[in-house]
């Protein structure tokens, strides 16, 4: 008797939890609408939407390189499995052509599609939720005036339980802080504009803030450094590893031009970002720079003094290259750093200790964030795969050394560079890291300086992965 009563109580409890979860997870369908007439949107609104879409970098994920823009289908590897981006062209059947503006607003604010299904946070709605209704309206106008493309992306490849969308309701309960950007009245209008762009559509933190094991950004380590597409997204708070501290002017120049004389050129996924920001007016670029510089804060006296010293050295002209020591150059013999110095002298010094200015000359490594960063992944990527040329325009380039240098050679070279051009402690497990990067076990997306994605197949990054 008592047993039956307990059983009943447990069953009722389970039912209540299930109903509660269903109520939490359930989102209604928003009725499909006839595709909007492109001429119903004003030209100004569409232009505004184009600039906002560039800030959001929508095209990067929603386009397969070489395929029609915004038609989706790009595979996004995540620690939970592979997600394929959706078609956001106005095709009514395979795209978002039958979405009303209301459905679009809800997707941006809550991460729910028109049919009411929860979307995976690979679509960074934890940031896009900050976007104003007005800006979403402009984005909607921009997308609805694109060429409709009939294309269904491949199914996601996610293991149980990640393939169950309702669990995303739980994720959102824990990690989604919903609602538009709230300005900080203590700050300037410019700062607030920058914060709105950087925290909302710009979603800087999606890469530059570390993520926890549920794939959510760790808000208490805001801008503390993360990773994206095989690249380290450096810390852009007080922990920035840049030898020369960033300030508003240098950030604005870098975001505007894709390079800076004390920091080098943007590459990897950041090249896409700086490429896209080309559409923005200077005022928005300066606003973003103002906000990010304020998050970084003022460098302390020691860091500032060190930076002055490095800039003075660099201004003196081409640096001395450590004379190549007479050593046994067979791998494994002699001091690895001497081997590294030898490789450096013949492969790197010509550009990196040369007199050609940025962005076409090589950056002095004493100024390089990559050489001074805690994790060597970015410098490994650049040494192996280089910086491929952009199409049809002058651009920063660097040759790929994957076919010249063995894993041990790269490790010795980097050990030398770390010793010579940084005060930070030596990197560990370099050979293993280089090997995993070369083989494609650790996937790296390669982009030229204009950010138009065309790697990795043509630069060999995927060679090993397919074997």
């Amino acid at each position, binding site marked *: 008797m008592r047993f039956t009563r307990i059983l009943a109580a447990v069953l009722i409890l389970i039912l209540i939890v299930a109903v509660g979860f269903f109520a939490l997870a359930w989102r209604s369908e928003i009725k499909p609408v006839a595709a909007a007439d492109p001429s119903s949107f004003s030209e100004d609104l569409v232009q505004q939407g184009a600039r906002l879409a560039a800030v959001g970098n929508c095209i990067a994920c929603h386009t397969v390189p070489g395929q029609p823009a915004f038609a989706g289908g790009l595979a996004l590897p995540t620690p939970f499995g592979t997600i394929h981006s959706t078609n956001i062209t106005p095709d009514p059947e395979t795209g978002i052509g039958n979405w009303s503006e209301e459905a679009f607003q809800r997707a941006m604010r809550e991460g729910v599609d028109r049919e009411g299904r929860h979307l995976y946070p690979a679509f960074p709605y934890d940031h896009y939720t900050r976007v104003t209704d007005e800006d979403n309206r402009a984005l909607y106008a921009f997308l609805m005036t694109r060429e409709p493309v009939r294309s269904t992306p491949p199914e996601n490849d996610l293991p149980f339980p990640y393939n169950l969308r309702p669990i995303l309701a739980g994720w959102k309960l824990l990690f989604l802080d919903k609602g538009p950007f709230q300005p900080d009245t203590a700050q300037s209008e410019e700062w607030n504009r920058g914060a709105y762009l950087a925290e909302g559509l710009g979603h800087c933190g999606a890469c530059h803030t570390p993520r926890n094991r549920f794939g959510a950004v760790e808000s208490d380590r805001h801008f503390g450094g993360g990773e994206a597409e095989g690249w380290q997204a450096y810390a852009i708070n007080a922990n920035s590893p840049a030898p020369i501290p960033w300030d508003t002017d240098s950030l604005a120049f870098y975001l505007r031009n894709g390079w800076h004389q004390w920091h080098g050129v943007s590459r990897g996924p950041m090249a896409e970002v700086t490429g896209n920001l080309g559409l923005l007016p200077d005022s928005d670029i300066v606003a973003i720079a103002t906000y990010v510089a304020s998050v970084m804060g003022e460098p302390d006296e020691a860091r500032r003094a060190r930076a002055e010293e490095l800039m003075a050295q660099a201004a003196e002209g081409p640096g001395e290259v450590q004379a190549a020591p*007479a050593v046994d150059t*067979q791998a494994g013999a002699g001091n690895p750093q001497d081997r590294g110095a030898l490789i450096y002298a013949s492969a790197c010094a010509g550009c990196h200790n040369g007199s050609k200015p940025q962005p076409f000359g090589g950056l002095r490594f004493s100024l390089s964030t990559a050489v001074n960063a805690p994790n060597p992944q970015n410098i490994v990527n650049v040494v192996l795969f280089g910086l491929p040329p952009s199409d049809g325009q002058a651009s920063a380039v660097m040759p790929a*050394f994957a076919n010249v*240098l063995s894993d041990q050679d790269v490790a010795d070279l980097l050990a030398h560079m770390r010793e010579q051009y940084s005060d930070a402690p030596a990197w560990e497990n370099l050979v293993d890291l280089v090997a995993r990067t070369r083989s494609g076990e650790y996937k790296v997306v390669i982009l030229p300086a204009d950010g138009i994605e065309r790697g990795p*197949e*043509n630069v060999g990054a995927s060679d090993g992965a397919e074997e």
Partner: protein
Amino acid sequence: MAISLNVNGETHEVDVDPATPLLYVLRNDLELNGAKFGCGLGQCGSCTVVVDGAAVLSCVTPVSLMEGREITTVEGLGTIEEPGPLQTAFIEMQAAQCGYCIPGMMMSAHALLTRNQQPSDREIRDALMTNLCRCGTHMRIMAAIRRAGELMQQAAAPSERRAG
């Protein structure tokens, strides 16, 4: 330092500063002047040679790492009397104007055609992405590379028939 280099199937002993890039040793010590000095910064591709089957820029390749590796220069593709398929195709298509970039173009193409004798235009463009030509003979270079692929397949065809 003394180093032993395998170039075009021959072994050469050279005594050079270990920090020397491979290009200088090829040209100055071995007098193989096919590979050209263009920019010296690994950006123009005129110094391209093939090492272990892959195209590399010899002006930024440390000679000290080349011991035991198989180096091929444009001289290794054939002779004036008996030009190889790439050389034949470049002559047939008249793909050179001033010719300075051509050895580098041919070596990048050689690495490509060794893997794939029927490359698409996209594959050719990707493989020759880092080879610059100031004369503008690109379309003829593309045609010559496609032709070289045909010649290589024709040369391989009879022996395949025998084998079958």
